[in-house]
């Protein structure tokens, strides 16, 4: 079944133009993407074993996606045996309903969360807020965008579009509103100190902690969380109830598979060999144990994923959310994440969004956000065939008649004229006659139809007075060039 994703209601042109018109945003995105892309390159260059592991990790992810259902059953059995409650959930509504009724049963009002793109995809915060629950994001980037009431603009660095000055301003506003001292400067230290101080109170007060999962190991029944801030540890251990919300694509078969892949998010994402914190969870607090939550709930969410299993796009489900493809994408580097209008941006977002939610959903994504430069597939640690997917999604849009009629006709005519040498010659003579009206100072400066966009910003040479074909025809049979 197709999944349901939130979207920015603004049309593509408005989203794009908003991004292009913001020099601060573009400078921020440019600097973050270059920094992370360079870090990734350096990390692999200085660590050859990382490449070997990458291939093993990719194979492990693919193997798991080829046998998802038995692995999920195994995972559920193991986790249940340890006292966790495991629930298969369809989409946003089922997940939100589950958390809301859990909160009601526990008399809980305050929730802390660690970073989870899936809960963004499920629009969970808005749904929980609508049910009267107070949700606090505790990942630094997520905290910032929560204060700004924004969506993540980068899969790994949700506040990638904001710089330190902007973050300082929103922290200061928050401090003023809450009557506490603001950060002492816009340096990283004071900013994180401010967030840490504010978040500490939330951690201690929360009755429910929600995390995602980076990996789920079926063999051992383990939920694996990796962060660089350690906030997920607190979310998973301080509140009396821990809810894990994870996509079914997170499952791995064995512990060895985990060992193979666990470094890849850090290597590809930020250029570190391992994330700073790795948390392994296999159940709620055991009898006699001094720590851990009383209840552990694990929600395994579909939201459009199962329909991809076994098909030509199944490799999309092996994505480890490292963001490497975002960081090298020329289009992402220009417009940032919000222009995509979806939870997921960058190359993977432009491909995955319509695959999860249907080709009608943000149909501009496969068309307008990719130049087919192939930088993404080169960077992707999981070798996801992103450029091929862009092309075949475009083909499906054409096949299903979603292309404007005029465009379709143009391609038909173009294809017909250029697929035989005789027709091609006729095209040349027509074009020569037509182009006379579109020239200035020896250059083509405008054109009708599909080509018009080119001439908004660029010139073209006209069709040459003598094409190469025509020149060749003048060459003497001895093969000497005419003078």
């Amino acid at each position, binding site marked *: 079944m197709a999944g349901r994703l939130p979207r920015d209601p603004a049309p593509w042109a408005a989203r794009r*133009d908003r991004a292009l018109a913001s020099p601060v945003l573009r400078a921020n995105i440019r600097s973050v993407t270059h920094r992370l892309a360079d870090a990734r390159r350096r990390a692999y260059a200085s660590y050859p074993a990382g490449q070997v592991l990458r291939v093993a990790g990719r194979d492990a992810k693919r193997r798991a996606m080829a046998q998802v259902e038995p692995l999920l059953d195994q995972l559920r059995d193991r986790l249940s045996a340890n006292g966790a409650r495991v629930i298969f959930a369809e989409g946003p509504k089922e997940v939100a309903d589950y958390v809301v009724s859990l909160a009601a049963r526990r008399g809980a009002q305050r929730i802390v969360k660690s970073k989870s793109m899936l809960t963004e995809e499920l629009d969970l915060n808005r749904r929980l807020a609508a049910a009267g629950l107070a949700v606090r994001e505790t990942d630094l980037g997520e905290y910032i965008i929560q204060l700004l009431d924004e969506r993540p603009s980068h899969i790994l660095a949700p506040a990638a579009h904001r710089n330190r000055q902007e973050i300082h301003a929103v922290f200061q506003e928050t401090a003023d509103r809450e009557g506490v001292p603001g950060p002492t400067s816009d340096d990283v230290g004071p900013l994180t100190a401010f967030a840490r101080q504010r978040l500490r109170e939330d951690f201690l007060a929360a009755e429910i902690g929600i995390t995602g999962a980076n990996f789920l190991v079926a063999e051992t029944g383990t939920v694996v969380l990796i962060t660089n801030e350690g906030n997920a540890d607190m979310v998973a251990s301080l509140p009396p109830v821990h809810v894990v919300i994870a996509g079914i694509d997170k499952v791995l078969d064995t512990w060895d598979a985990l060992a193979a892949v666990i470094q890849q998010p850090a290597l590809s994402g930020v250029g570190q060999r391992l994330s700073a914190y790795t948390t392994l969870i296999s159940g709620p607090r055991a009898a006699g144990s001094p720590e851990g939550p009383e209840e552990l709930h694990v929600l395994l969410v579909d939201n459009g994923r199962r329909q991809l299993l076994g098909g030509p796009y199944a490799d999309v489900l092996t994505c480890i959310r490292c963001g490497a493809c975002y960081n090298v994408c*020329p289009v992402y580097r220009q417009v940032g994440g919000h222009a995509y209008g979806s939870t997921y941006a960058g190359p993977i977002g432009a491909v995955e969004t319509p695959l999860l939610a249907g080709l009608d959903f943000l149909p501009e994504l496969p068309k307008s956000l990719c130049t087919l430069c192939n930088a993404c597939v080169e960077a992707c640690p999981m070798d996801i065939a992103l450029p091929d997917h862009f092309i075949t999604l*475009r083909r499906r849009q054409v096949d299903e008649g979603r292309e404007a009629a005029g465009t379709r006709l143009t391609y038909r005519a173009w294809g017909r004229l250029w697929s035989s040498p005789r027709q091609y010659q006729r095209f040349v003579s027509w074009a020569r006659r037509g182009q006379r009206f579109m020239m200035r100072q020896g250059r083509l400066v405008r054109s009708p139809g599909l080509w018009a966009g080119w001439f908004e910003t660029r010139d073209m040479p006209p*069709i040459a007075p003598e094409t*190469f074909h025509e020149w060749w025809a003048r060459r003497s049979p001895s093969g000497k060039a005419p003078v």
Partner: protein
Amino acid sequence: MEQVDLFVSCLVDLFEPATGRAAVAVMERRGAQVGFPLGQTCCGQFAYNAGHWPEAWAMAKNLLAALDAPPTPGPDRGERATVGLSGSCVAMVREEYPKLLDWAADQPGWDSSWRVRHARVAGRLWELSQWLNRAALAPVADEDTTTTRVALHTGCHMRRVLGAGADAAAVLAALRVRVATPEDEDQCCGFGGTYAMTEPKISTALADDKLTALRATQADAMVSCDWGCLLHLAGRLSRTGVAWPVLHLAELVDLADRGELAPTQLARAGRFAREVP
């Protein structure tokens, strides 16, 4: 004598035939007997990338038939190399046609001999700098003191799909042309086939970034192996009134062979902003 067929690409044929003429001169100078399969038009990449595969397939069949047809006179094409003047088009034929063939195999009117013809054509197809990089490259001109520097732009498909990202620089180095590498050299210039037409704003933002990086090298000219990227970048220079020579690798090698690499000579050969009145 080595027999070589030329695959010029539609953009060279229609808009920049001087590149094709330069390639003929360069290849003949290196002892090749150059042929030109007459039926060729376009590899169909623009339609393929935009998702219009029936049109792409029609063009692909035409190109495969042209490049596979026995020449008259001359040895069987099987003994000849084919040299393409666009890294992107060569990548299309070699790396993307197999996907198009898989698709076509499910369409009505499929003829499995296309796979055989494709294998023959793709197996002997090289991009110009790949061919030059393995052909005897002793500089034809004995001039070795040029101070000319060119900024090299390597197209994304040439680099990442064809895997020929280093050949052009090697060719230029062998010719003692100094090559300047722009910052962010592996970033896309924003051309992207019809992307340049359907998303002109993003495409142009990328062109401007690319041109800034290329011009920052203060090279005497820019050179590339793809007229796709070059038409886009030169078209942007032209529209913004910047005079900076833009050349295809074939033309630069031709000039180097003739010892005509002085900046004024590059300027005469390179494409400019609107024609100087």
